[in-house]
């Protein structure tokens, strides 16, 4: 449940903030959310990875569709990719990894302040 909540929050916050803030805000949002909403490490990573990966895929795919690949094809070819789909995938992957790492960093950060329960009690 927390996982789904986090995904919804990351997507909506990113969607509204990204047009106005530097691109790396997609690392900061999952970082902060993983501090506020505690889950485990894998869940922190994948909430970032999947939300931004999905969001960036959705936006770039839509632009590609709406503009009949007018620029995607040119940039893909410039990057020596032979299909513009790869460019959409690379875009999504870059966003996904940065956001995933941001989420994981948030989790490991809040862990620093967690008191370890002694096994001897």
């Amino acid at each position, binding site marked *: 449940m927390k996982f789904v909540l986090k995904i919804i929050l990351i997507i909506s916050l990113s969607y509204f903030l*990204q*047009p*106005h803030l*530097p*691109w*790396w805000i997609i*690392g900061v949002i999952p*970082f902060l959310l993983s501090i506020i909403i505690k889950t485990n490490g894998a869940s922190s990573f994948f909430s970032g990875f999947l939300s931004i990966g999905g969001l*960036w895929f959705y*936006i*770039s795919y839509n*632009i*590609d569709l*709406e*503009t009949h690949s*007018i*620029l*995607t094809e*040119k*940039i893909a*070819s*410039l990057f020596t990719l032979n299909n513009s789909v790869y*460019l959409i995938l*690379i*875009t999504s992957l*870059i*966003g996904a*990894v*940065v956001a995933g*790492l*941001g989420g*994981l*960093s948030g*989790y*490991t*950060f809040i*862990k*620093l302040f967690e008191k370890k329960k002694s096994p001897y009690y």
Partner: protein
Amino acid sequence: MKFFKFLISIGLTLASIYFLSIRLHVGQSTLPPLGKFLNPFQGFWQNAKPGSIDEPEEFSIPGLSEKVTIKYDTNLIPHIFAQNNQDLYTAAGYVAASQRLWQIELVTHHAAGRLSEIIGNKTVNMDREQRRIGMTWSARKVLEEWKKYPEIYNSLEAYSNGVNHYIHSLEYKDLPIEYKLLDYEPENWTPYKTALVLKYMSKLLTISESDIENTNFLKIYGLDTLNEIFPDFAEGVDPVIPPGTKWDFKNEIKPIEPDTLFTVPLISNVYEKPFKGLGSNNWAVGKSKTTDGTAIFANDMHLTLNLPSIWFVVQYHTPEFNAYGHILPGTPYIIQGFNDSIAWGMTNAYRDLVDWYLEKFKDENRDEYLYDGNWLLANKVIDTIKVRDDEDIIDTIVYTHHGPVVYDRNFQANSQKVNLAMRWIAHEPSLELLCLDKLVKSHNYDDFKEAIKYFSCPPQNFAFADRKGNVAMIVQGKFPNKYYDQGKFILDGTTSKTEWQGFIPLDENPQIFNPDRGFVSSANQHPVDKSYPYWVYTNNNEYYRNRRINNFLNQTDSINYKDLMQLQNDTYSIFAEETLPLLLDSLKRDKISEKDLTVARELGNWDYKYEPLAKAPAYFEMWTKELYLIIWDEIFDSDVPLPHPSSYQTVWLMKNEPDFEFFDIKNTPEKETLNNLINISYQKCLQDIKQWRADNPGKELNRSSYFHTSIMHYAQIPQFSAMDLEVGGCGDVVNAITNTHGPSERIVVKMGDSIQAWHTYPGGQSGNPGNPQYEHFLQSWIKGTYFPVYYFKNQDDYPDQTIFSQTITP
């Protein structure tokens, strides 16, 4: 342990963000900051546009005095309606920036020798050259002159205000894609940048001289041989002003020829000259020769073909004038165009406008130089070139009163260490903008003449037509009044006798109004015949296009606008017509195998037209290229740069001087004749064809595949370019499309009761490769078709052709 985990994950996060935020060098290429660039919310994705216009419908620009309305037509041509010049040019600046921001800034960086700031060390030599020939120095000088004329300077400030308003409205996501790819940002526009754009054009059109090469040739072969191969007036030329025109000059001043002798060492390096053979065509047919008695005007200007296109089309409407035409993005004024009374357009009028003075300095410090027996102080300027990702380059440039010492021990260092100062007409302040300001407001020939007298550089053949059916041509520019052969060779810098002795009076520039033949035309050929009282020289005359145009216009009566469109797209080669029979007749066919004769047979059946899929033009190009190289082997094998003879004079010598000494190949023991050369070059041509087929497997050799005409993006990005086009033409035919150059626009204007016009150019109004209109006109340009011009009289005209209406308020 927990701390360690945190360090790893935060480290990985920050590292990935860092490396995705900077440019990465991979092998020869540089990647843009990937995170920033690929971000779909702000990166390159935002430059992809579903529609051709993405602009606010209403906004305000402080500084406007009244409301401005802009109507965009289906071809994305803005029709700007303003109440005064200030408002007009503010809007024009905004419009130009919104369509072409990256291009206009790049041109100014190029002109100012600042490319290395963006590109890095690859462009340092280009930048140094621009600084050394005085581009920024002369741009600053001309700006000071402009400040004395508020009518133009205020317009330039208004234009800057418009451009800057657009720049300040941008966020990263709105930047043109090239800024994102190269990862830099636009800077503020100023009137100085417009001066740079004009200097850029002046350079392109006036510095293809060969004074140093001529000097080398003179030293090696002597004056007689030079005059035989490079005559000032070749036999049979058809000048701009019809031969036989009487010159009735009252102010004629004869320059004084010095009697001193002066020797120069051989010079082994020269900088790269702009493409020789850049040209244009213009003509205007008067009422006596057209079907319905109205003058028809046509112009196609030939330049390096680039994307975004060098031209941008606009209509300007104020209570004072209503003009339509081509502007150079970066300058506010219409350069070629028409208004409700007249049409005008230009071709380049080549003349030798660069001269080199050999300076004698007192010592190695070069603080003082000798002039008329005195030591004069030289001026030294320390120039810093900023280089991206590298150290600054510092260059010292010495100026004498002649101009900057371009060639010296530090630049193109030649073994002689000579100091050559450049005197260039573009170094003089001039008022072309005042001319353009007056042109759009001209109503008749007198207004036109009054306007163009301010046009100094680059000199142009101005064609004129009006609605009364009049036509005229004026060879306009500020031409030094030179004594015979002055500046054809390096000049002695130590004496005042070799200075330019004033300029040819403006009234005495070649001109003609309503000539008997019923039309005027120009195509970069000689301006006049030998009877013109002043000495006229350039190394860059055109010999073929002009005769084709004149033949057609002389032979055709009752001409209509469609004939002129056809003529603009004509690919018939007079060069081939005059050369090929001689070549084919000289072939020793009995010594050539049946298979090898197929090329000659194909050429024998050729109609001399450079059609896109014709094979013969490719064969002919290859053959004549080989022949040219072995005829002039003395020139191409030389250790020092020498001038290149024209094809025209080469053919003239072949026909009239078959025993000319240069026909012998120098490095062979036997003595070759012209006939030998033709046969040897035919064999070489067969070899070249074989090699071409091996290099291009599966491809058919024809005009298109041989030239592979390409319109390159300014940053040489192939994906943003139009490559390997299937087009006809070559440099010598009216449709002068070569591999990289050609008609940068074509326009035909019918000056009747109502004005009708048609045009096209190899590109589109939008400079954004992600805009559907980036190459909007390209196919029509290739096919030789035209778009009708929507010449608005009122804002509400052409409602069906208006796709977007924009209002700018104060």
